[in-house]
């Protein structure tokens, strides 16, 4: 089976499952009406290319390595992967290149360098080589603007943190494993116990 056929088979399967679930909710006739629509399409328009083979668009390879470590330190691996694990650094490189101006691009490039230089000054190692706890302490310092970091460093770091958070929680892992993703809720129910859902929705804010 080719990769494409396999994907389509999975796609059809998922579509069938969704339709069966929907028939109960809205009736068989109505759910059949939707067969021709995009309501359940699983897009194939974009897929992450292999992170390792991709060339960075903005950063040097060394910067990207530091950024990966920053991502993983800000959102580490728990029972779900961390931000570095899901290529949030690659996402940021791509996103900055396509969706932001040069001022923003420079700010992120700058704060990556600031963090790495600070690691070298404090520990004589690149940030990407630091022990977890040491890396955490350094980022905590820049986040809280202490231990020699300046206001500007912290501002740039907060912007980077925003990109990390955005990239992670819009990734498949972040949105659907770390949080709870519900593409077709079937209706709206207010006043549901939070404990029944278990986590924040990963499917908000995309209208």
């Amino acid at each position: 089976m080719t990769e494409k056929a396999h994907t389509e088979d999975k796609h059809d399967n998922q579509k069938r499952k969704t339709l069966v679930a929907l028939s109960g909710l809205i009736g068989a006739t109505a759910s059949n009406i939707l067969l021709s629509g995009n309501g359940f399409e699983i897009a194939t328009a974009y897929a992450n290319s292999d992170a390792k083979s991709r060339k960075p668009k903005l950063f040097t390879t060394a910067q990207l390595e530091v950024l990966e470590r920053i991502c993983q330190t800000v959102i580490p691996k728990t029972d779900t992967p961390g931000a570095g694990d899901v290529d949030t650094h690659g996402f940021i490189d791509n996103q900055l290149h396509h969706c932001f101006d040069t001022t923003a691009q420079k700010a992120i490039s700058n704060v990556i360098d600031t963090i790495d230089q600070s690691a070298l000054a404090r520990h004589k190692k690149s940030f990407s080589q630091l022990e977890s706890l040491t890396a955490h302490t350094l980022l905590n310092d820049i986040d809280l603007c202490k231990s020699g970091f300046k206001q500007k460093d912290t501002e740039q770091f907060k912007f980077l943190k925003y990109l990390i958070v955005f990239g992670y929680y819009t990734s498949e892992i972040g949105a659907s494993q770390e949080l709870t993703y519900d593409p077709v809720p079937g209706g709206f129910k207010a006043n549901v116990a939070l404990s029944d859902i278990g986590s924040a929705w990963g499917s908000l804010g995309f209208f």
Partner: protein
Amino acid sequence: MPSSYINESKEEFDVLIVGSGITGGWAAKEFCERGFKTLMVERGRAVKHRVDYIGENVRPWKQPFRQRVEKKLVDDQYKIQQQCYAFNDATKHFFGNDKDLPYSTEKDTKFSWIRANQLGGKSLLWHRQSYRLCDSDFKANSLDGYGNDWPIRYSDLEGFYSHVEEFAGISGTPENLPQLPDSKFQPPFELMGPELALKATLEKDFPDQKLIIGRAAHLTQPTELQVSLGRVQCQARNECQKGCSFGAYFSTQSSTLPAAAKTNMLHIAPNSVVHSLIYDDKTKRVKGVRVIDNDDLSEREYFAKIVFLCASTVGSTQILLNSSTKEFPNGLANSSGVLGHYLMDHNYNADIGGTIEGFEGEYFKGRRPTGIYIPNFHYEPDRYHSKFIRGYAFAGGAYRENWGSRASEDGIGLDFKNRLKQPGKWKIRLSAQGEMLPQFENRMSLHSTRKDKWGIPLVNFDIKWSDNERAMMRSAAKLGEKMLSSLGATEIWSNVKDDAPGLAIHEVGTARMGRDPKESVLNGFNQAHDISNLFVTDGASFCSTAVQNPSLTFMALTARAVDYAAKEVKAGRL
């Protein structure tokens, strides 16, 4: 789907409708169902229901920029459109391209013109809030002297509101409020805990401010007819502007187009930019339209016995202004001289918010496609505020903070990740939606020299907020803060912005109705005083903005105008 798409035709249709949005779709359905051979002329491309909703249901991680739009593309083509809240990578193809659709503004003025030039128009992109105007709204101009008196009253429109609501499907609650007549409702969406708390607070401390669930054109309990048209109940995705294959919200594609197509009376001419109307000065009637092809710029004409302009407020008036004749040197059907004047929008410039404690264990399931609504409480002169006339409503809702607004909070690592795994504080937000006074000076006209790529003169806007609108927004911000304070909210803030007109996307006026042909373009049936077989039934016909979102009234006015025109044809008068 439509009986046929046509390109060239010498045939004289019974009726020609310019535009295919909310208004044009309704005109087509109503005429087709009465047996009129109908031609719908749309300037943009055909958008097929479901098939062309290319952004629908694409997961964020499958989108190259996770729903953001590439900067270069925005800078080149969407500088204006990107100001709209609904503009993103999954909806951008339903917005006009600013590069192809330039317009100008008078010195020291601004206007944000949001465009949706395709089959379905803004019916694909609208926010679906649906409210009837009330009798005081139709009387306001005559009572306080701004603008002209509407030639109709609530009772003229009441039956047509019911007619369009039963077809479109409006969810909401009956409230029996004088300022906001009840619609024919499908079941409402639920209020959330903090919203119910605010409602209780208002009932106790603010007797004039009633909190209700926003009335929205979403099916919550579809009728047999709606299901037969391929529509099913709302799935609470709240991604409506990408297009909805469920047909759960009212749009031309989901609703009026399939109904019209069923009759086999509907013909559609897409990619047909109407340059001007063809007027016969001997018969004093319009004969059809001159069209420039959207793509190859070739010229053609379409003919009909009756013409309905449903091309949007600005679009319809632009066509009239560009159809001058010897008899009408300042725009067709403009013997009054008011064509282009009294342009209005709603003012959305006051926002209020706060934090609510005590609901931490509560959450919700699904994404509600509507919010809360506090109807206008200054709805008649003896209820006016001392600092301004007319009134405003509040729209808003409660929500829980998530990663989107919490990224800048202090913290990193395990603790930070675990915190973002849970929803944050409950917040409540209100935005004022204020009426704009009708003023002669606020106008659109044709640019004296600049033309677009179709050879049509650019629209030039000259519109400003007055002190009345500004005073209203300041007052709204203060009242909103008081209400949230009374609720016991913390971290209360308010902000009065100075956004230019246009962004409410409720532009109305410019070809207003009226009893007197000397001071209005249209009569009480949206029929041009000067030209009996010409009607304008979109927002251009409005005499005042009122406070309510206007789309439901576009529908009702259109259904009423078609009913009238059909009867006039039958009586041999048209």
